[in-house]
């Protein structure tokens, strides 16, 4: 180690000397490394951005929520035949809330296609009746100045409505919507909030941005024959999700007499699965992009190795002198490896700085549209920095190692006479 430190100053001067008569070659190689670093950093950052928006998109439906809808038995159970429909009845949400502590939040969802009118403009859409918990679970957040439905809305069967942001724009244009009124099924409703824009990749019955929500109690009083279309619940924690699901089958199975193992009797869409797949797709894309960037960098590394071979040849005589003075194999090799690393690190720094600048510029660009929403913004992260540094270090060391090994294998007696 002492040797390496003492050699550092000499290596730097060696590099400057080489730079003197190999200027073009070294500059081009450093640029090649910079280019490789640029591609690896940018590709990984785009991958990271994409991964994050995929994650956001998956959470657009709600984080770790499960959707339950009526099904039919597929097994005979306690003397009852298979193929028997299993409903979700009005009293079931309260039963589940009281019997299953693993369920954190729960909401019913009624739904009906109906027309919504503002003045003479009328839009046909899926109206849903939900509980206040629905908004939080499904990541439906109100824009500033508005709110989602609350407990009093439900208790007092208020005629209030919360609009998806696209529906609000279609009905009212760009105007401020909260406090305005509209008509649903010949009744007047007050708009209490409009949803914030979000990326939503998972959905059932259409995206949230086109749907109006009213209190479940209001919905039930308007459409007395309405049946619960589905339940949405979120477990207390991720660890309890499986238990909550099993308990739900057990409680409902006891009530409606079906086998708790018969998972077709009630349909449950557990969105954890989708989120896991999404995460894996994101990671897969990032690895793929990383490999492409790595290969680009590898080509730059070949350039460094090439130069180092030339430098070794040029310094054959010097290597001989050092050997005559008693330099061991390692001591002959170290300066070459350090010089290769120096070139690589230099290129890496240039490449990283340029890519950070580009990422900042892209972030500042006013890019709009669904494609950009999903592609997200390239995001630099400490993990990317670590990966890039590791790859650069490895390539630099290898690009130095082989020429250096070659240098240390020369015959001192021969190399001293080398001209």
């Amino acid at each position, binding site marked *: 180690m002492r040797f390496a430190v003492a050699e550092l100053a000499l290596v730097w001067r060696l590099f400057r*000397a080489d730079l003197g008569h190999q200027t073009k070659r070294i500059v081009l190689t450093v640029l090649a490394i910079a280019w490789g670093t640029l591609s690896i950093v940018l590709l990984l950052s785009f991958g990271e951005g994409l991964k994050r928006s995929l994650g956001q998109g998956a959470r657009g439906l709600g984080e770790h929520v499960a959707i339950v809808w009526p099904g039919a038995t597929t097994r005979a159970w306690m003397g009852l035949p298979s193929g028997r429909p299993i409903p979700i009845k009005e009293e079931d949400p309260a039963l589940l809330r009281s019997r299953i502590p693993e369920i954190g939040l729960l909401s019913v969802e009624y739904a009906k296609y109906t027309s919504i009118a503002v003045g003479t403009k009328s839009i046909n859409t899926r109206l849903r009746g939900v509980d206040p918990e629905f908004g939080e679970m499904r990541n439906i957040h109100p824009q500033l100045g508005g709110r989602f439905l609350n407990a009093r809305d439900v208790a007092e069967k208020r005629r209030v409505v919360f609009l998806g942001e696209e529906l609000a724009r279609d009905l009212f244009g760009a105007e401020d919507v909260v406090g305005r009124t509209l008509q649903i099924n010949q009744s007047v409703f007050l708009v209490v909030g409009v949803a914030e824009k979000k990326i939503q990749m998972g959905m059932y019955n259409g995206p949230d941005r086109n749907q109006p929500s009213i209190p479940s109690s209001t919905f039930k009083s308007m459409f007395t024959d309405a049946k619960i279309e589905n339940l949405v619940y979120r477990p207390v924690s991720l660890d309890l999700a499986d238990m909550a699901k099993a308990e739900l089958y057990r409680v409902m199975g006891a009530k409606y007499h079906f086998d708790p193992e018969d998972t077709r009797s009630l349909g449950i869409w557990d969105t954890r699965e989708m989120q896991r797949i999404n995460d894996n797709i994101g990671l897969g894309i990032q690895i793929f992009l990383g490999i492409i960037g790595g290969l680009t960098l590898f080509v730059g590394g070949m350039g460094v190795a090439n130069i180092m071979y030339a430098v070794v040849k040029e310094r054959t005589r010097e290597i001989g002198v050092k050997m*005559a003075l008693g330099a061991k194999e390692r001591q002959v090799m170290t300066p070459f490896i350090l010089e290769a690393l120096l070139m690589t690190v230099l290129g890496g720094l240039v490449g990283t700085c340029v890519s950070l600048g580009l990422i900042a510029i892209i972030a500042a660009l006013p890019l709009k549209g669904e494609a950009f929403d999903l592609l997200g913004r390239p995001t630099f992260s400490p993990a990317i920095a670590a990966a890039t540094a590791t790859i650069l270090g490895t390539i630099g060391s290898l690009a130095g190692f082989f020429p250096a090994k070659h240098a240390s294998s020369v015959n001192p007696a021969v190399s001293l006479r080398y001209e």
Partner: protein
Amino acid sequence: MMIEMQGIRKVYSTGRVEVEALKSVDLDIDRNEFVAIVGPSGSGKSTLMNLLGCLDTPTSGLYRLSGETVGGLDRNRLAEIRNRHVGFVFQNFNLLPYATALENVELPLLFGGVPTKERRERAKAMLAKVDLADRMDHKPTELSGGQMQRVAVARALVNRPTMILADEPTGNLDTSSGKGIVGLFQELHAGGQTVVMITHDMALARIASRIVQIRDGEIVDDQRAAA
């Protein structure tokens, strides 16, 4: 005996052709001798120098340096022996062009693992000994030929080697600088240093206390000057 060579033979094979550079050399050199090895080009004197300096190993024969048998040793071990026992002085100086005089002199100590402070001090003292105390921070290109060769001598001496091995040390110098270097060798010899000098110049060889003549890979004459 400091240097013992018995039946040293060196054969170079280039493809199918074998060249016998040294046939069978027996040579003993004692401590504090000043030996000149003289011969025309192609006589095998460079091969002999490479073997003496442990830059190369003989095809057959026995070589003992300070009691240690050189032969069958690996490259790193040979490097250590060169570092400890041999101080090379070359015809074309062979200084590192990008390093200062002081750094050049420090190199053998660097390779020998001497700590920084001691290394610097010993190198400075050695440069002062060859009258270059005021040129320590100069690069070789900023020095004259004679000064460069004196830096090289300082570098050869700095690790207190068993012998100085000089290959045509005055070959690239003008007459007066050459005389300076020769005078330096005589001084060193007088101070107890073993010096082996390889040259084709009989006039130069006469300053040594012993002249070994080599021709066609064999020692043909070995004379000690009358003391």
